């Protein structure tokens, strides 16, 4: 970071707040559709426009989604929770208060864990997850660039107003930009796997702010923090935090104090810049919303929302890495493609060969899934079929070349790889006697390569192996063929 090595003197202390739109059919407190990209101001009603006399009624599924998410991170779901009003004026907030949760959120505590690139495991405690409603969207006119600064008016679309939103607040446990991104990736994976959100940052369904401070390594006191906003991709979260840490280090090294403020991330410029600090702190005047009943969760009701923790993405990734020996990247790829991890687990349950199974699932299978636009889990290649194939390859009963073509056929047409191999005689040929004639023919047909090899061009051997494989329609065991070729080429 700094050429003089000052970076290592400091450590960053980072906390992340993110807002995640929940995936539901209807909004948080009314029956309007919760969809992205609809015609402006068409998904609005008296409730989500804050019309006089309209009243909110909470969406049960949104509450359950949040609880599911909380349980996935080991949050405590208190027996009693309630909605509060957060009072402030903003033109895209119809009631000029936001229904949110203040002192009794639906989920408290919990831990988010993740892997870093060097293989170490990190974790960040959650403070809370609470439920609230989204605002509408403003577009700013008259400034030329659509930005609020310098605009002369704004246009408002209330379609998003009232969409259920969960706010996840972390403890300041994160120590680097990389860790912040890894934390967010675990959140995203988990929400997607649970089906509680699409987590599309480009559609604004996940928005996050980071609180960043630095301190001398070894210190326990917190430094002055800044809040970074406007980061609209995981990549920009990483870049913004890195740039802010560097800025703060430079300030401290220069003997300048850090000012507590909100800073905006400028994606193009790659820097954060100060946003005017408010003249006075907000006074949100939170109070319990008298239009809404508190929420109580009996332990029995929680049971129904607590899924199988073994299939949670981070648990799976840990299992794949720690027990199955996959790489972190492989493990994450398995978990990140929808339905693939379940499929993979099913295959491994039959083969007991995680690495070989992963190679097929992430290799041939995902290539075919891409080409055919059919997800792995929905192809005609069932987990049982792939397991047969993996077992055949691992037992060297077929060559990988044959495996590839059989896999492709079964993907398209279905059927049992084992039966196909047997009925069509596609088993690997590894008996040297059976391959002797074939090797003789290849050598005879490619005299030039024979000469090249003997003249010291080692690459000619691979060409000859390839030709032999081709002649065997892929069935020949390439290592046996290579051995035979070497033997014959060495002979005068």
């Amino acid at each position: 970071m700094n050429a003089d090595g000052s970076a290592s003197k400091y450590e960053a202390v980072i906390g992340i707040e993110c807002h995640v739109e929940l995936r539901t059919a209807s909004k948080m407190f009314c029956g309007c559709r919760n969809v992205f990209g609809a015609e402006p101001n068409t998904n609005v009603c008296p409730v989500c426009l804050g019309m006089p006399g309209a009243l909110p009624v909470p969406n049960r599924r949104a509450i359950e989604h949040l609880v599911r998410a909380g349980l996935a991170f080991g949050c405590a779901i208190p027996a009693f929770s309630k909605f509060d009003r957060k009072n402030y004026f903003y033109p895209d907030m119809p009631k000029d208060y936001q229904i949110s949760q203040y002192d009794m959120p639906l989920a408290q505590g919990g831990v988010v864990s993740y892997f870093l690139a060097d293989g170490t495991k990190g974790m960040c405690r959650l403070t809370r997850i609470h439920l609230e409603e989204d605002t509408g969207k403003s577009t700013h006119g008259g400034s030329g660039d659509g930005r609020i600064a310098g605009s002369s008016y704004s246009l408002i679309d209330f379609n998003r107003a009232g969409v259920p939103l969960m706010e996840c607040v972390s403890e300041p446990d994160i120590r680097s930009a990389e860790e912040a991104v890894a934390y967010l990736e675990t959140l995203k994976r988990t929400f997607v796997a649970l089906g509680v959100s699409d987590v599309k940052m480009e559609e604004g369904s996940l928005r996050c702010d980071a609180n960043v401070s630095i301190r001398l390594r070894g210190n326990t006191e917190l430094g002055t923090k800044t809040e970074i906003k406007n980061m609209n991709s995981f990549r920009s979260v990483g870049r913004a935090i890195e740039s802010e840490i560097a800025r703060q280090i430079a300030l401290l090294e220069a003997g300048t104090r850090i000012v507590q403020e909100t800073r905006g991330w400028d994606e193009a410029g790659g820097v954060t810049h100060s946003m005017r600090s408010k003249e006075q702190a907000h006074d949100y005047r939170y109070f319990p919303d008298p239009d809404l009943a508190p929420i109580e969760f009996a332990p029995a009701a929680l049971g129904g929302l607590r899924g199988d923790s073994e299939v949670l993405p981070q648990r799976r990734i840990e299992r794949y890495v720690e027990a199955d020996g996959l790489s972190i990247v492989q493990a994450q790829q398995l978990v990140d493609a929808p339905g693939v991890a379940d499929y993979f687990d099913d295959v491994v349950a039959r083969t007991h060969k995680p690495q070989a199974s992963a190679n097929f699932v992430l290799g041939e299978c995902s290539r075919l899934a891409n080409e055919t636009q059919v997800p792995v889990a929905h192809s005609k290649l069932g987990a049982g079929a792939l397991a047969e194939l993996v077992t055949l390859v691992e037992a060297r009963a077929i060559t990988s070349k044959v495996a590839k073509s059989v896999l492709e056929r079964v993907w398209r047409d279905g059927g049992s790889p084992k039966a196909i191999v047997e009925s069509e005689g596609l088993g690997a040929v590894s008996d040297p006697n059976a391959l002797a004639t074939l090797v003789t023919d290849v050598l005879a047909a490619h005299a030039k390569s024979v000469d090249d090899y003997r003249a010291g061009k080692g690459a000619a051997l691979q060409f000859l192996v390839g030709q032999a494989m081709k002649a065997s329609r892929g069935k020949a065991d390439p290592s046996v063929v290579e051995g035979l070729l070497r033997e014959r080429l060495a002979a005068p």
Partner: protein
Amino acid sequence: MSSTNIDIRHVAKLARLALSDDEVALYGAQLENLLVHVAELEKLPTADVVATAQVIPSRNVERDDVNTPSLPRALVLAGAPQAEGVYFRVPRIIAEEG
């Protein structure tokens, strides 16, 4: 109670009410008078009392996640003080960015 003084200008700012000087004086006096009466509550032994937010307690009043009809956009925008195209229009929002 903490005080029967009320910073009317500050409160009016929070409530987004423009007040004239006369109103500040009038409401200030009237509300301070009310706060004197309200201070009577200090005499009540409320230390160990549960606060009542809703007089008839109910729990978990929720609805199913189903769609119901929205309002026609033309009707909604017809009631707007100012609309532009398919949007509500408001004067410039003072940017927080410096």
